[in-house]
């Protein structure tokens, strides 16, 4: 028979004012299997815990129930006390007599009776508790960072500086991301490349960082501390160990009219190319889709030009496997193109640009070397219209959220335009100005007051071309809905920030959740903004939601700290509240029939297939097995299991049925 100790807390008067605690202890003391039952003023105090420890030893208790506050408050306290007395901590349970009883009921007979019932329930549960051991899993102290924009760069550097190895994977031929495309940054107007490129070089030279550019994640298996990542190294067609980055091949390449991704389509590049002059690594790749040799089998001019023989025509994609303990997702965002807007010309007007294209125009490294010129005729625009919230905050466009950065960069664009074209006239159409952030509001005021940007509150209904001008038809809602028509030379749309292409597939590869807009979902919107629901995978930057550079950097450092904290342990210790599939003696082995309903239920991919084999190696049956590193203990599989073969430790069927039976069996 069980020997259970029951300890009823008065919680000062919090419980004893409405519950007759002595009666609870007395009645529970008479229950079958209860060896010891007392009440005390403060069970969580030192003397209170000492009562428990002494009773465990004196009576040889094999279970403890503490009737006190919510287990969410003091369960760890009392479990620790039990463990110190030599009792397995998972043989200790708490009955919630305060939050669920004394605080919500008046002093009465019924309240005391409910308290007795609650304690009884847990006594019956504890009788079925089994000693459990915390789960320990080893940790591989190497991190994988996916995405080499400012988020990935910051996270990589921060992790690497804690002394841990980092693998940084970037899809493009160079790291740098969107930040490398920006001209100046708000609210200080310092040049983006000036602050970014030193970081890029630091990444390339850091002894703890292994950089794979032109590479993508193929698959990720495993669980926190123990991931196995397959990375596809796309064929660069250039041998980086011999290439000196002299650039002669680029100058001689005859295919010169490919729209440059780096210049957001405004400039051109060659087929063998380095995306931009400050690229890291500063060595070219061959774009096989556009290269004459890969298209037609002839050309090879670059090979003839290359003095070190670095061109590798037959190079194939290579897949490598890396073992890592944590993953940081920093895949960033994308912006909608002008073709998304029928009302603004479906992308057919050359002088209607996205904000990102305007960044390239304004950038000293851009196609016009920083001069604001119309893509159509190269003229300097004298009248320019900026349209904020192009797509954002528009449920009809499927983008009901605010893209957050546009208000600020539109103010910056207008400012930069005024600084560069002194006699120019700029107008910003906006819905609201959202300038929350340090020095942000001041920055917008500066654009309006010092740089005389004309801010018009209202939407633009249509933009169309007429006699070489762009006619912008909008409304000024602050002037009683008066219609505004502007003959502009250039229109810049602050197009919505959206999830990067392929983010949905990546999320599915990693088993992290994503929101309806395909941004990755954080584990908790407030308290776990950098974690995902998959343990060991963290988020940094705009892959979670649109955000600006300071926020991105802060988040990346946050993710890095999470990784560093994880790596500070040699082993991870987890609560053993996980599912287990039963194992029985031969010839049954398990009641699991291998239907794998549990597999469909599991949000964490924790169900593995196991072949149960006889001594001669013959297959007896397929059965499910739970990977305890991945299982988070939700128990959804338990409710799904047809044969009741899977159960969750700490909330087993036996335990919960015992609770239900105790409540009603009198």
């Amino acid at each position, binding site marked *: 028979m069980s020997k259970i100790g029951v300890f009823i807390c008065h919680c000062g008067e919090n419980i004893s004012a409405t519950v007759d605690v002595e009666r609870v202890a007395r009645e529970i003391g008479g229950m079958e299997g209860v060896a010891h039952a007392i009440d005390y003023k403060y069970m969580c105090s030192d003397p209170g815990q000492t009562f428990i420890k002494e009773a465990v030893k004196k009576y040889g208790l094999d279970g403890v129930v503490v009737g006190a506050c919510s287990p969410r408050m003091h369960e760890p306290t009392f479990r620790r006390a039990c463990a110190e007395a030599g009792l397995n901590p998972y043989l200790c349970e708490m009955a919630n007599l305060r939050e*669920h009883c004394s605080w919500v009921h008046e002093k009465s007979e019924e309240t005391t009776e409910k308290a007795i019932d609650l304690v009884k329930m847990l006594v019956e549960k504890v009788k079925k508790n089994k000693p459990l051991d915390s789960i320990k899993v080893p940790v591989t102290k190497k991190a994988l960072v996916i995405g080499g924009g400012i988020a990935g760069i910051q996270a990589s550097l921060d992790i690497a500086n804690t002394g841990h190895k980092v693998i940084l994977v970037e899809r493009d031929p160079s790291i740098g991301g969107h930040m490398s495309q920006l001209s100046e940054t708000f609210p200080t107007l310092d040049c983006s490349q000036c602050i970014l490129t030193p970081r890029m070089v630091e990444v390339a030279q850091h002894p703890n960082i292994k950089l794979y550019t032109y590479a993508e994640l193929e698959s990720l298996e495993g669980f926190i501390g123990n991931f196995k990542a397959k990375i596809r190294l796309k064929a660069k067609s250039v041998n980086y160990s011999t290439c000196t980055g002299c650039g002669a091949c680029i100058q001689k390449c005859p295919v010169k009219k490919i729209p440059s991704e780096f210049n957001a389509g405004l400039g051109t590049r060659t087929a063998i190319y380095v995306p931009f002059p400050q690229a890291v690594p500063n060595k070219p790749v061959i774009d096989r889709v556009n290269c004459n040799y890969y298209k037609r089998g002839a050309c090879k001019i670059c090979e003839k030009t290359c003095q070190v023989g670095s061109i590798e025509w037959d190079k194939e994609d290579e897949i490598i496997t890396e073992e890592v303990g944590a993953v940081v997702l920093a895949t960033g965002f994308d912006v909608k193109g002008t073709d998304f807007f029928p009302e603004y010309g479906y992308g057919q007007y050359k002088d209607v640009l996205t904000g990102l294209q305007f960044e390239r125009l304004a950038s000293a490294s851009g196609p016009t070397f920083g001069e604001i010129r119309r893509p159509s005729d190269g003229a300097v625009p004298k009248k320019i219209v900026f349209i904020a919230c192009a797509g954002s905050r528009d449920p009809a466009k499927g983008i009901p959220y605010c893209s957050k950065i546009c208000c600020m960069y539109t103010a910056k664009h207008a400012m930069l335009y005024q600084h560069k074209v002194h006699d120019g006239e700029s107008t910003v159409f906006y819905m609201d100005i959202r300038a929350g952030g340090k020095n942000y509001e001041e920055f917008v005021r500066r654009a309006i007051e010092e740089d005389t940007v004309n801010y018009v509150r209202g939407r633009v209904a249509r933009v169309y071309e007429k006699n070489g001008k762009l006619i912008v038809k909008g409304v000024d809602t602050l002037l009683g809905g008066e219609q505004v028509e502007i003959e502009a030379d250039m229109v810049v749309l602050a197009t919505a920030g959206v999830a990067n292409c392929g983010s949905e597939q990546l999320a599915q590869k990693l088993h992290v959740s994503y929101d309806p807009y395909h941004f990755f979902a954080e584990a908790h919107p407030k308290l776990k903004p950098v974690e995902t629901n998959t343990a060991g995978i963290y988020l940094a930057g705009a892959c979670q939601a649109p955000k600006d550079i300071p926020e991105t950097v802060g988040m990346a450092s946050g993710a890095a700290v999470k990784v560093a904290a994880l790596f500070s342990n040699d082993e991870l210790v987890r609560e053993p509240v996980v599912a287990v599939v039963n194992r029985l003696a031969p010839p049954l082995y398990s009641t699991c029939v291998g239907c794998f309903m549990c597999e469909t*239920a599991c949000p964490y991919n924790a169900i593995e297939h196991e072949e149960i084999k006889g001594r001669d190696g013959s297959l007896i049956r397929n059965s499910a097995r739970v990977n305890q590193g991945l299982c988070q203990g939700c128990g959804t599989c338990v*409710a799904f299991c047809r044969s009741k073969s899977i159960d969750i430790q700490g909330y087993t069927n036996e335990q919960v049925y015992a609770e*239900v039976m105790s409540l009603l069996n009198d």
Partner: protein
Amino acid sequence: MSSNTDFEPKIIAFVCNWCTYAGADLTGTSRLKYATNVKIVRFPCTGRIDFLLLLKSFAQGADGVIVSGCHPNDCHYTSGNFHARRRWIAFRSVLDLMGVDIRRIQYSWVSAAEGSKWADLVNNTVADIRALGPYAEYQKVADYLEKEGYNEEA
């Protein structure tokens, strides 16, 4: 519906640890009062709740059952509450077809911030069940099945 004042219904609540259990804790810390009839059984997630437990509860004399977890999209485990909801939709119609009084099952979502919603849920359920009276029919059937050996316990 006339209320039966002598009858104190026995109600059992199956709630998830992360939302409703925490919500009920908040009811306590906010000192909101509610009826004593409901006793909570804690689960990690509503996805864990085997709906046979509901039938077992009725067989054992429960007059009503509350199932409550996180709101859709709030699940600590991403999708456990969706599984529970889907199972409940299917289970509900089966029970209805079988003649079980589904008015006695209250399925709800109470978040960790909804302390007052929990108090209201309990009070309303108690009032509803009190009006319905004791659930003797199911117990009779269960007793009969047990006697006839249809419901053998291990």
